[in-house]
């Protein structure tokens, strides 16, 4: 028993568990809109693009959070502008802009080899080395995103479900796009330290997709996704203590395991329903009077 409570004895672990829980909750909540707007690829691309922003912030000497947020929001707005103005498909625009932004970071690192190691945390996540300031950044972003979702809930649902009619009904689409871009960029940046560039896209996508398998109601989907994100964030870091595997990877592997489990249970339930239906059909046929020809 004492062994099970061991992770809670250390300050850095308590911070890591809190940060991972908040990051899981935040990424999953924002991920609901990412998945339903079919923007899963943008989460993947943006996290890579923001890596460039992180390096540029370091080189220019400005605050990482500020520089990377501006860089990330600029990337998303540029993707929107390019795909709308020049009729380039969204996924192609994401591919071009975010990989170019990532490449800027790689190019700068290759010129200044002295600070290569500082970016390992950004690339792969380092939740155990997280500071109180980083936890505060995640919590602050979460409060901001929560307040925005609360006030703009109807607008966000309308735009996500039916963009054309939302615009026709007076929903300020351009503002929703800008705010969503900023929220997405802020979420990715706030959670980089926990999950890293390479894993954050999974944390945005897997919990909402898992929740989608469980419900047909938008509000329940949002709640279930947030709950899955928070629980897997906490349990992932907790388990990583015992299995001695990277915390970010454990969180994402746990999320993937939950997804597979829900998918399998859903498949079993569907098969049982199908078998029940066939049995009822057979019983009904057995109860019918026999055909004089049969």
């Amino acid at each position, binding site marked *: 028993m004492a062994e099970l409570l061991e992770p809670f004895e250390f300050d850095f672990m308590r911070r890591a568990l809190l940060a991972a829980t908040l990051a899981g909750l935040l990424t999953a909540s924002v991920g609901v809109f990412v998945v*339903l707007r079919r923007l899963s690829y943008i989460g993947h691309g943006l996290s890579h693009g923001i890596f460039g922003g992180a390096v540029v912030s370091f080189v220019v000497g400005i605050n990482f959070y500020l520089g990377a947020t501006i860089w990330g929001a600029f990337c998303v707005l540029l993707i929107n502008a390019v795909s709308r103005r020049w009729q380039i498909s969204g996924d192609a625009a994401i591919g071009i802009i975010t990989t170019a932004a990532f490449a800027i970071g790689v190019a700068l690192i290759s010129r200044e080899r002295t600070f290569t190691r500082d970016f390992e945390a950004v690339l792969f996540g380092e939740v155990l080395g997280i500071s109180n300031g980083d936890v505060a950044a995640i919590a602050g972003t979460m409060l901001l995103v929560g307040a925005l979702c609360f006030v703009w*809930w109807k*607008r966000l*649902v309308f735009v996500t479900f*039916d963009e054309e*009619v939302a615009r026709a*009904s007076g929903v300020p689409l351009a503002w929703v796009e800008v705010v969503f871009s900023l929220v997405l960029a802020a979420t990715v940046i706030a959670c980089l330290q926990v999950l890293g560039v390479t894993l954050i896209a999974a944390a945005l996508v897997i919990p909402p997709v898992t929740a989608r398998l469980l419900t047909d109601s938008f509000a329940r989907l949002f709640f279930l996704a947030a709950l899955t994100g928070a629980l897997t964030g906490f349990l992932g870091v907790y388990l990583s203590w015992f299995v001695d595997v990277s915390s970010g990877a454990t969180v994402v592997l746990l999320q993937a395991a939950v997804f597979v489990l829900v998918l399998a249970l859903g498949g079993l339930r569907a098969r049982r329903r199908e078998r029940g239906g066939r049995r009822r059909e057979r019983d009904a046929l057995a109860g019918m009077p026999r055909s004089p020809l049969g």
Partner: protein
Amino acid sequence: MDRIGAPAAPPAASAPPLVAFDGVSAGYEGEPVLHQIDLNLRRGECVGIMGPSGSGKTTLLRTLLGQTQRLAGAVREHSGRAGALRVGYVPQLESIDWSFPITVEQVVLLGRWRESGWRPWFSRRDRALARQALERLGIDHLRRRSIRALSGGQQQRVFIARALIGDPDIVLLDEPTTGFDIKTRHDFIHLLGELYRGGLTIVLTTHDLNAVAAHLPRLVCLGEGRVVADGAPPRVLTPDVLRAAYGAEVAVLRRGHTVYVVEHEDAPLEPPAAEPPAAGPAPVPERAPHG
């Protein structure tokens, strides 16, 4: 099926039009799609916009919604009350993401997003209005169902209910019968008739000349972004107008008040000799003079 019946209070010819297009040219990114459109839409009218693909039907609706770039002319609105014209828009069903987790009632409530305040939930009054709109369309019993579990005709009614809950001055429907089978299309025409008789102003675009356009009280035919003809179906569905708009030779048959457009002149128009002749006066094909 005959033309849809007239409303209890027909639109007064002397009243100013609800919407007037005065020499409007409009399009996208500086490129005009509509050219010099003059068109009056009166309160209580039901108008069908027809024409070939690319003729500007959807652009006309989008101009009404203020979503196009106006390059010339003016769109004047006389809603008769304070504030801008309230427009209810029903999109093509193809544009909807059916995998979205949302119930019928939630879809309808979205039509109240502006009036319902900043809280994420809807008030009791909003829900009562949603129920009223669903009852008006005969689908209140489906309000807790997921939108994707409904048939095409039921889904169409849900989106009309969403348009109606905002108490619109005018309702626009973009290709409302695309993908519908005969029965669903028939039901839709009846629903349209009920809404029209209830005094609703309706503008819809359609490709369906026989099953939809021929039953509407007024048709506007567009060709290459211009109004080719405007009036009752017998005036608009003529070989000359259809040739000018579609660039195709067609025959037009008339039976009573109803007009039938026959797309393939070579198709056998008469039933085989063994079958008894159809009741009523035989349809007389009206052919376009060739050359």
